[in-house]
């Protein structure tokens, strides 16, 4: 066992922590491969921490007890898959040194999960290209373009609000002009992220008519049925005077 640990330490260097209490523990944070030349852990999207408890009977008669914890970017099914991979690996290799095997098994699987599983919360489509991803300081993933167009719009809104307060001579407690929130958790985005977003090439949101037509053509018969039902209800409420008459009310307001 000692020999195996020496070899592991030589391979993983500081990533691997060995502690000796009553039992021996090894502790290693496994990152997905990411770009081959990219050693910056912060840019890696996924990781999981592996803890192995080695009794004095390892490896001859007892397998290590392996737990996975503190993961990032993984969904439960993926964690389950990793756990079952580990159990079958342990079973297959019982009686021999298995730690390197397990660590590399997880690393290769993680790399296959490389892209975050959640769809971008802004456009609701999956994030398929690594280069399109932006990860916020609060660990949420978006298409860079999606988050950028939100940030730009929000920035304009905040600037306007700020200017309005100044014009009306309001006391401003704190400059909020850069308080752009993460769409999912509302934590304020870091200045580095905001800078990155605001400087990215701009993108227009245009709505083209032919797209509209296409959308309508795709409506299913069920939707049409519902539409008719709603129209009927509308008529019914209108007859009873239950529908707000905007034109009439405008007059009330303005005269």
């Amino acid at each position: 066992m000692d020999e195996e640990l020496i070899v592991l330490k030589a391979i993983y260097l500081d990533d691997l922590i060995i502690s000796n209490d009553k039992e021996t523990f090894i502790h290693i944070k496994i990152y997905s491969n990411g770009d081959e030349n990219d050693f910056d852990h912060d840019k890696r999207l996924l990781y999981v921490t592996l803890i192995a408890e080695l009794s004095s009977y390892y490896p001859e008669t007892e397998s290590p007890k392996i737990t996975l914890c503190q993961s990032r970017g993984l969904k439960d099914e993926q964690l389950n898959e990793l756990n079952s991979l580990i159990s079958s690996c342990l079973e297959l290799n019982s009686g021999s040194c298995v730690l390197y095997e397990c660590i590399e098994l997880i690393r290769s699987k993680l790399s296959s999960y490389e892209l975050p599983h959640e769809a971008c919360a802004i456009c609701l489509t999956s994030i398929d290209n690594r280069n399109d991803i932006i990860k916020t300081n609060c660990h949420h993933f978006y298409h860079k373009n999606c988050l950028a167009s939100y940030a730009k719009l929000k920035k304009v809104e905040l600037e306007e609000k700020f200017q309005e307060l100044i014009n009306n001579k309001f006391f401003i407690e704190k400059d909020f002009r850069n308080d752009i929130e993460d769409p999912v958790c509302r934590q304020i985005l870091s200045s580095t992220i905001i800078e990155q977003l605001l400087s990215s090439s701009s993108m227009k949101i245009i709505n083209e008519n032919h797209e509209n037509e296409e959308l309508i053509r795709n409506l299913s018969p069920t939707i049409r049925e519902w539409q008719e039902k709603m129209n009927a209800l509308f008529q019914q409420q209108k007859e009873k005077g239950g529908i707000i008459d905007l034109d009439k009310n405008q007059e009330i307001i303005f005269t």
Partner: protein
Amino acid sequence: MNENGALTKRIVKESARLQQEPVPGIDAIVDEHNPRYFKVIIDGPSESPYEGGKFKVELFLPDEYPMAPPKVRFMTKLYHPNIDKLGRICLDILKEKWSPALQIRTVLLSIQALLSAPNPDDFLDADVAEKWKADEKGAKAIARDWTQRYAHET
């Protein structure tokens, strides 16, 4: 695909999901002429003065959606401190608290929740709010009466 396409696609996805997995008590149907316009019926929540009512709501997705919030308005009359005579709704997520991670369904759920829990301290209609604070029982009776009168199906 360009980003514009992706964002339009979001609207298609939302429309489809609203139909496939409807929110209980809420029917939302895209308009036959405009995919950015939704006709909605929100059932009055049980144990609220709006119970039994079917409230028509119109929802419009502006060009900036989902970066900017949808525009939502009640079409059916109702007596509520956070909804004015024109059916406009006072709800933070429809204004400064909007986030592009919110969706049509979350907005409609929030509106339904607003029917269950009126907030007369952050009112839109001053008269209704005043009544609500001074005489909650009486205000609720009016709300029930309006529901009965304007929002019942038959």
